[in-house]
């Protein structure tokens, strides 16, 4: 901290030319595409079909919003409900299962540890085998069902969560466990009453990062939960894209709507997202 203030003291002048260039470039490269989404989403159909970057002749926000929501029997509403169920259930499952596994993995030295580490890393690297997974789900009677997709999301997300939790459990002193045990806590009480509450900050990180991942997931719903009845928001958007080729205003209204949940997450949990996504950076 003192070194940075010293540096700032040595160089109080900010580089204004570089700043202006950076800001201009960032506007062209990153802001314009988002502005394009918003502008096109509020245009009327005719102007939207020009695909140009221009100010709307008339603002049709409400009209386009209603049209998108009503399209195909309120498909978007159903999709939002489905996506919410999927996200909440699978992230909750990931947090509990991964925290339990990570806790034992960090605390207990056993001959399983090597295998568990290997499996965790495999889960990060290996691309899931699609059709065999469908085959297993079918045998279990879970193919094309929401519980099946939730379990798949949990299985694919576990590795990342376990890594984050394990690193954090290592910072909780073992004396705490011992004190709880002396007070007569069993394994379940120890974990859920003592350890789990202490994991709060890393749980927030995991929840935020994985919510964004699961909410934005397109591939797994595409394979494991096909069909209009169960469509998630990403699938709905994809299906709309072939249907709305002449109604770009509605297509972009749809894009705008599904961008809002990640935006809200970003505004409120910026710090946790950064912490979660850079977890591996310093340690490598």
């Amino acid at each position, binding site marked *: 901290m003192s070194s940075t203030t010293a540096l700032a003291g040595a160089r109080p002048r900010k580089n204004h030319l570089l700043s202006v260039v950076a800001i201009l470039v960032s506007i062209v490269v990153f802001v314009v595409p988002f502005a394009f989404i918003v502008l096109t989403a509020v245009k009327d159909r005719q102007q939207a079909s020009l695909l140009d970057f221009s100010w709307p002749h008339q603002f049709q926000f409400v009209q386009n919003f209603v049209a998108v929501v009503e399209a195909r029997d309120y498909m978007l509403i159903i999709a939002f409900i489905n996506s919410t169920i999927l996200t909440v259930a699978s992230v909750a499952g990931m947090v509990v299962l991964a925290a339990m596994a990570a806790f034992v993995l960090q605390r207990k030295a056993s001959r399983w540890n090597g295998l568990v580490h290997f499996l965790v890393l495999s889960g990060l690297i290996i691309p899931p085998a699609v059709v065999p997974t469908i085959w297993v789900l079918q045998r279990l009677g879970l193919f094309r069902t929401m519980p099946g997709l939730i379990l798949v999301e*949990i299985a694919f997300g576990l590795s990342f969560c376990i890594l984050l939790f394990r690193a954090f459990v290592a910072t909780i002193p073992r004396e705490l466990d011992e004190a709880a*045990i002396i007070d007569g806590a069993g394994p379940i009480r120890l974990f859920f009453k003592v350890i789990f509450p202490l994991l709060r900050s890393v749980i927030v990180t995991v929840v935020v990062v994985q919510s964004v991942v699961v909410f934005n997931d397109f591939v797994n719903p595409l394979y494991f939960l096909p069909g209009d009845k169960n469509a998630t928001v990403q699938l709905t958007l994809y299906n709309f894209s072939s249907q709305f080729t002449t109604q770009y205003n509605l297509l972009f209204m749809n894009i705008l709507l599904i961008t809002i949940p990640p935006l809200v997450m970003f505004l409120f949990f910026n710090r946790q997202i950064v912490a979660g996504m850079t977890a591996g950076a310093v340690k490598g």
Partner: protein
Amino acid sequence: MATTSIHTPAKTRTTVAGPDRGRLRSPYSTWFYLPAAIVYGVLFAIPTFASFYFSLTRWSIFESKFIGFGNFVTFFQEPALVKGFTNTLIYAVVTSGTKVVLGLLLAVLLTSQIVARGYLRSVVFFPVLVSTIGVGLTFTVLMNPERGLINSALSVIGIDGPGWLTDPKYALLSVAAVDVWKGVGLATLIYIAGIVSIPGEYLEAAKVDGASAWQSFRRIILPLARPATVTVIILSLIGGLRSFDLIWAMTRGGPGFTSDVIASVIYKQYQAGFYGLSTAGNVVLFVVVTAIVLPLSRFLNRKEVEL
């Protein structure tokens, strides 16, 4: 006599400590693994192992017939599928390399003394969180050859932009560019974390010794940000080799099959009902990912230790 008298208390101590330690260890009971192990085992490990068998079969979802390496022969003979294989490698290398270079440059810029740093960091990172399908569809419109914003802007300065997604020469690289646009924020973030963790004294000392900005970048930031470089390379390679949704949203592998990658081949063969061939694609992808990522991460991490 003396030895036994020493041994006996030692023995009794261990027998007393034995159950005691057992009770101390029991809170970390192995069954805590069980729920995670079941979900992971049934829905990830078993399918992965099963894929090795099913890739050797002609398979409809009801019955599978063993045909040896026929699927793999098909995979490496059919031009469309070979194209998917080479495209996967090109796509992964291009996106990963670009993310490393751009991510590092942006991170240096965003850790320097600059106005509106918070805004710049946010705006570079935000696309990471946005739906891939949404980004893909948006850029498909922006890259429209006649009316798209990119070509309209280029025509203002007198350049006749190509059909980014409709010209077979550019389709794959255009998608890769959008992938970089969406993913460079994560690389930047990882680099920022790496650069911030470099002790300020090093840069100060270099400055006192009269090092130029380039020298302190080359001799201090670059070597000390190495763990970040390793992370960015490995993460973006894994992501690039497996990527599917962006390509599917933008070109569906087209025009023709010129921008197909292994993951889109897997989906196409699955849709067509060739489950064995699709699973063979999965196995090829598995081999490619492990054959590239494992040795590379070992190599990169070893050099880090030497440093």
